[in-house]
């Protein structure tokens, strides 16, 4: 198992957020997490990334690259240097890191903005830069918190296809938080649906369709999941 969560409980003061969440993620699996706003999805990721100590429960998680919901680009670094951050931290020489991240600017639709300051980017461009910073780290496990939320459908589809291809190529294990049911169905091997706060896993659906998927083929699954979200 790349990730194993058992009976996870997290509270903020009196506010119980996670109330016994349990699931596993196998190596190479792509699992999406759906759930109402404020249910505790980002909180779950923080625990998985080792940033928050749970009140109770058992968590085993392989080292992961984490893309938080906020883009958190640093104003003191150019866009390119923001995207090399994880590589630099991992000890890659700056020049190599720049070459590696720079190669992704084209597919991410950011070319020409390598040397801009982050506050010169649009919202969607910031989000793509943050995603780039995450995936370029080449970790086995990706934790992506709403990576496509601020993208138009065309850009979004392009990014989804890129991710689908990459994870097939490199065997990445991906955990994805999204509000887009269609996106979850399109990308995932399995979808977990969380209840409203305090969150538990209320529905689990394995999706066994071949990749790349046709939207129409997955329509039934989509309806089922929408139902589970009610």
């Amino acid at each position: 198992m790349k990730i194993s969560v058992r009976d996870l409980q997290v509270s903020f003061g009196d506010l119980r957020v996670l109330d016994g969440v349990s699931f596993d993620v196998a190596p190479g699996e792509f699992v999406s997490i759906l759930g109402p706003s404020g249910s505790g999805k980002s909180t779950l990721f923080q625990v998985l990334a080792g940033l928050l100590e749970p009140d109770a429960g058992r968590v085993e998680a392989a080292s992961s690259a984490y893309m938080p919901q906020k883009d958190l680009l640093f104003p003191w670094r150019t866009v390119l240097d923001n995207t090399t951050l994880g590589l630099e931290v991992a000890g890659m020489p700056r020049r190599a890191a720049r070459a590696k991240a720079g190669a992704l600017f084209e597919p991410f639709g950011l070319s020409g903005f390598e040397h801009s300051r982050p506050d010169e980017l649009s919202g969607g461009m910031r989000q793509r830069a943050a995603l780039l910073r995450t995936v370029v780290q080449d970790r086995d496990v990706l934790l992506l918190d709403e990576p496509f939320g601020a993208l138009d459908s065309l850009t979004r589809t392009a990014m989804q296809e890129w991710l689908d291809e990459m994870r097939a190529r490199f065997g990445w294990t991906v955990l994805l938080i999204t509000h887009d049911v269609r996106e979850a169905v399109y990308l995932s091997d399995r979808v977990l649906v969380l209840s409203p706060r305090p969150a538990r896993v209320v529905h689990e659906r394995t999706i066994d369709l071949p990749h790349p998927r046709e939207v129409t083929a997955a329509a039934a699954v989509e309806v089922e999941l929408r139902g589970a979200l009610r």
Partner: protein
Amino acid sequence: MTATLERPPAAARPVPRRPARWAPPVVVIALLLVGWQLGVTLSGVAPQVLPSPLRVVEQGWANRAALWTNTLPTLQVTAVGFALSLAVGWVLATAVDFSPWLRRALLPLMIASQTLPIIAIAPLMILWFGFGLLPKVLVIALVTFFPIVVGLVEGFARTDREASNLLRSMGASRWTEFRYVRLPGALPSFFTALRIGITYAVTGAIFAEYVGAQAGLGIFMNQQKNSFRTDLVLAAVGVSAVITLALFALTFLVQRLVAPWIRR
């Protein structure tokens, strides 16, 4: 990393408990004092040059009445002077924030004011303001208003442009924008500057007494120095250190009351 954790529900966060919080300064200060005491005892240095800490405490206690009598005026001058300094600092920083013209006109003057050596202006102060509270208060204000102004001016200037835009989109006047965004946004920077300023306030007061005073810790130090009583000079230094530490701690209290959202 493959982390495994299994913990009972825990209500309390791991905040260092009381003894742990107070231990570090106590340990270090105790070590320093013991080292000092040993150094003095072993080297046999004359107490006029460097008295032992025990002697300082003992003599300070023996002269506690005189120390106390001289602490009160210093405290009073510090309080009044620093209050004036705060008022002046806020007024100047606010004015300068509203008018780039004023900013360019006043900033060089304010910087220049910091280069006035008391030795050069003390005679003028006395001739103009006599020997009352006023000249001392002015010296303290002069010594301490500058950090306040710089802290505020830079705090104001670093306001998030997008936050200002939001306010302007609500139809806020410059003054409203100031009140709702620039002012609270500058508070972290202000409190940093306040801590710098208040540290100089007590030293400033002692210094100000050189301009002319009947009593005060500065006068006491000077008298004792002229009587070669280094131990009593150091006792007075100790008193002023305690006052400064207390004022410094007070700024955290005020910050927690005024701006509890500032993360530390």
